[in-house]
């Protein structure tokens, strides 16, 4: 009898939970109303900014080992080097007030700015700068940066406010590398999860897959940031991001495609820049039939880049002819974009000459998480079919792409975009030298190697520029890859915000963004 009562009691309990469930149901309406009112944010409730980002800062936040472009983009506001790039691509003094370069261009003497504080309250001194140079040289995941720093003879403390850096050989790009050496305190070891720098914003918190919060750093040495707080909300799903935009939940979203920015609410305006990357159909120059320059050129003639732009982005985007994008105004050679006009006849003739009169079949391996690259690959496959090349688009996961295609070089062709880790021509061009570990396409050209070597051995800016431009021409004439475009970067921003700037690098400068009255 007792168990019976207990059973009754239990079923009563089950029923009451059920009823509570119904209660939850009833209040659901109010709940979602609450969510709606919290995001009718046409006007800022406070001097705060909500930025929608498409990927989580899902890697180390350490200044030297962070990898993802999306992470570097946001932490640009937290970390600074002795020099930093501005929106026009020049290097301006940041934590250094001044830099004296010796006659032989081997010694750089930096005078540090007075009164710079780290976000954790300690004062920056020469020891921190030397520590940062050494740590960066030892741990950087950017191989061109660590190679440049490997050439350092020494970084020495001269006095509390002076650091002398001695190079083994002159390096005209040295200031660009200096701007990537973020200065961090020498007695703090939590950078991987709680970064501490000197930038206009300090890192407050992150919630995995939800948000990253930054706050204005009040003791910043320079012009203070305009907003008090920035919340980067993570929308890994494209549809969720669009819904958030339609609901007005975010004030700023970068890196959208042309189709995504259509039909948005009138509180937004759309700005157009470029993504600053080289999108191409990268060809494995070591694998047949792509080891034949005629086949590579045939592919270039077969592809109609204008049609690619029209079909994937309503004509937005900038055509490229080599591994250089237009934000590098000095190095970008516009004439290369028309080296291979769309000419299927010529493509067929070249293929016949190379011994493939009936074409051949090939695979285009694309990382599936990058929709613009997948879209481009699909259009390319159609265009190649017109000259008899049967291209099959194979989508793979990003990690698989990195392991098999990038590291393993086990592929025929792939569509991706390479960006520049820093503002040097080398960041884009060094990659394709014969012996480079990053030379995914195994491009071999002694002429190209010689040009780059020459360019890096001299310091005269004009001569270097012309050598780099010649190297770009070699890439184009050898048809190392089928160069497509620098993708259009659509930015959606609340109309009441000012101060957004496009940079020639993949960064988002939040410090100048402000609400207008």
């Amino acid at each position, binding site marked *: 009898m007792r*168990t019976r009562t*207990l*059973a009754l009691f*239990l*079923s009563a309990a*089950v*029923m009451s*939970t*059920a*009823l*509570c*469930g119904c209660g*939850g*149901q009833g*209040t*659901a*309406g*109010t*709940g*979602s*109303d*609450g*969510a*709606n009112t919290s*995001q009718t944010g046409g006007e800022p409730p406070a001097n705060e900014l909500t930025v929608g980002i498409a990927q*989580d800062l*899902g*890697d*180390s936040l*350490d200044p030297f080992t962070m*990898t*993802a472009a999306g992470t570097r983009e946001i932490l640009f506001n937290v970390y600074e080097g002795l020099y930093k790039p501005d929106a026009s691509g020049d290097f301006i003094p940041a934590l250094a007030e001044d830099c004296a370069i010796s006659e032989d261009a081997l010694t750089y003497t930096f005078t540090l700015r007075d009164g710079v504080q780290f976000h954790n309250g300690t004062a920056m001194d020469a020891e921190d700068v030397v520590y940062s140079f050494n740590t960066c040289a030892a741990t950087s*995941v*950017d*191989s*061109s940066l660590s190679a440049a720093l490997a050439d350092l003879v020494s970084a020495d403390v001269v006095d509390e406010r002076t650091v002398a850096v001695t190079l083994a050989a002159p390096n005209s790009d040295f200031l660009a590398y200096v701007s990537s050496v973020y200065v961090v305190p020498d007695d703090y070891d939590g950078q*991987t*999860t709680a970064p501490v720098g000197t930038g206009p914003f300090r890192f407050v918190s992150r919630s*995995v*897959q*939800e948000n990253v919060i930054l706050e204005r750093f009040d003791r910043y040495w320079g012009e203070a940031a305009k907003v008090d707080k920035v919340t980067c909300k993570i*929308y*890994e*799903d494209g*549809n*969720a991001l669009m*819904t958030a935009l339609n*609901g007005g*939940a975010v004030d700023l979203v970068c890196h959208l495609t042309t189709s995504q920015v259509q039909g948005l609410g009138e509180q937004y305006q759309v700005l157009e820049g470029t993504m600053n990357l080289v999108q191409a159909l990268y060809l494995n120059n070591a694998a047949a039939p792509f080891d034949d320059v005629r086949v590579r050129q045939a592919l270039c003639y077969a592809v109609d880049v204008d049609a690619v732009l029209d079909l994937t982005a309503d004509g937005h985007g900038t055509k490229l002819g080599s591994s250089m994008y237009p934000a590098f105004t000095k190095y970008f050679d516009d004439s290369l974009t028309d080296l291979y006009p769309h000419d299927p006849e010529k493509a067929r003739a070249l293929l016949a000459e190379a011994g493939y009169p009936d074409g051949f079949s090939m695979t285009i391996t694309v990382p599936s998480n990058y929709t613009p690259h997948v879209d481009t690959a699909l259009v390319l496959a159609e265009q190649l079919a017109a000259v008899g090349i049967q291209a099959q688009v194979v989508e793979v*996961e*990003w*990690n*698989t792409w*990195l*392991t098999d295609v*990038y*590291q393993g070089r086990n592929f025929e062709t792939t569509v991706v975009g*390479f960006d520049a880790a820093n503002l040097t021509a080398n960041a884009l061009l060094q990659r394709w030298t014969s012996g480079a*570990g*990053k030379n995914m396409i195994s491009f071999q050209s002694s002429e190209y190697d010689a040009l780059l070597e020459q360019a890096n051995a001299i310091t005269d800016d004009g001569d270097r520029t012309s050598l780099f431009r010649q190297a770009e021409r070699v890439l184009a004439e050898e048809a190392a890859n089928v160069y497509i475009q620098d993708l259009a970067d659509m930015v959606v921003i609340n109309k009441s915000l000012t101060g957004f700037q496009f940079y020639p690098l993949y960064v988002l400068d939040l410090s100048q963004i402000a609400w207008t009255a």
Partner: protein
Amino acid sequence: MKYLIKKLCTLIITLFILSLLAFSAFSIIGDPAASMLGTNATPEQVAQLRHELGFDRPLLVQYGDWLSGFLRGDMGTSYSYSLPVSGMVLEKLPTTFVLTLMALALNVAAAIPLGIAAARYAGGLFDRVVTVLNQVIMSIPPFFTGILLTCLFGLVFRLFTPGAFVSYAENPWGFLGYLFFPALSIAAPRTAMTVKLLRSSILEQLGQDYIRTAYSRGSSRTMALWGHALRNALIPVITFTAVSVAEMVAGSIVVEQVFSVPGIGRLLLASISSRDFPVVQAIVVILALWVAAVNLLADVLYQYADPRIRLS
């Protein structure tokens, strides 16, 4: 007591095999060293990192390493986030827990009254409508229900804003409100199955001898149903509900993607694609524990529902 020990031993063996399987799956799909370094690193740097993280050791050694840490209560550090796994998982667990609980509550709240009513008026119009609806709902998987609900209630009726998830710390009511539709899509197919099961189970009980005896003692059909048949009819339903709870956890992993709810499921999928095995291992073990705990609870519940059942 003996029963508990036996259950516990089975559980430990299950967890052991499961975690070993999950671990070996990663040896097939590769390690995260490449994606941790990105496209500006050389193969030498990747090889060095692989060595530093110990990915070049034999699989069993790596597994042993993980296991010994886990047994000491150390779930390790996430490769991607460099955060302690325990903190990351604990932060996401309540969301998935509440989501599943809500789905269970909806399931029980809807299935029991509907099942009883369908059995009570078996063959009537109500019963026929319920049966047809059941067939339809049962055959739609939760993720598709989720997409339908998002379109209908999110975009057409605007009862909720898809993607506008708020965490429980920020706004508890908004949190529960947002989880309602995800919970509904998880609960729907299981509810339909439960209704069907309860209806047939009650009808079966109503045909038993002891019910005829009850009638002969003057019980009405209603009295026989509530007083006698229902309790016996609930036993298979309890078993089924326990299975449902396990299913709902699986369902929530999928539905979290549809509604972009940042719970365990989203974390699990993201960790799988970034090869973040310490996180995946921890989640797999937690989900297995969850299923085992629910099954244990169901066993205990039977005993109360049917005193003839003795756990041994």
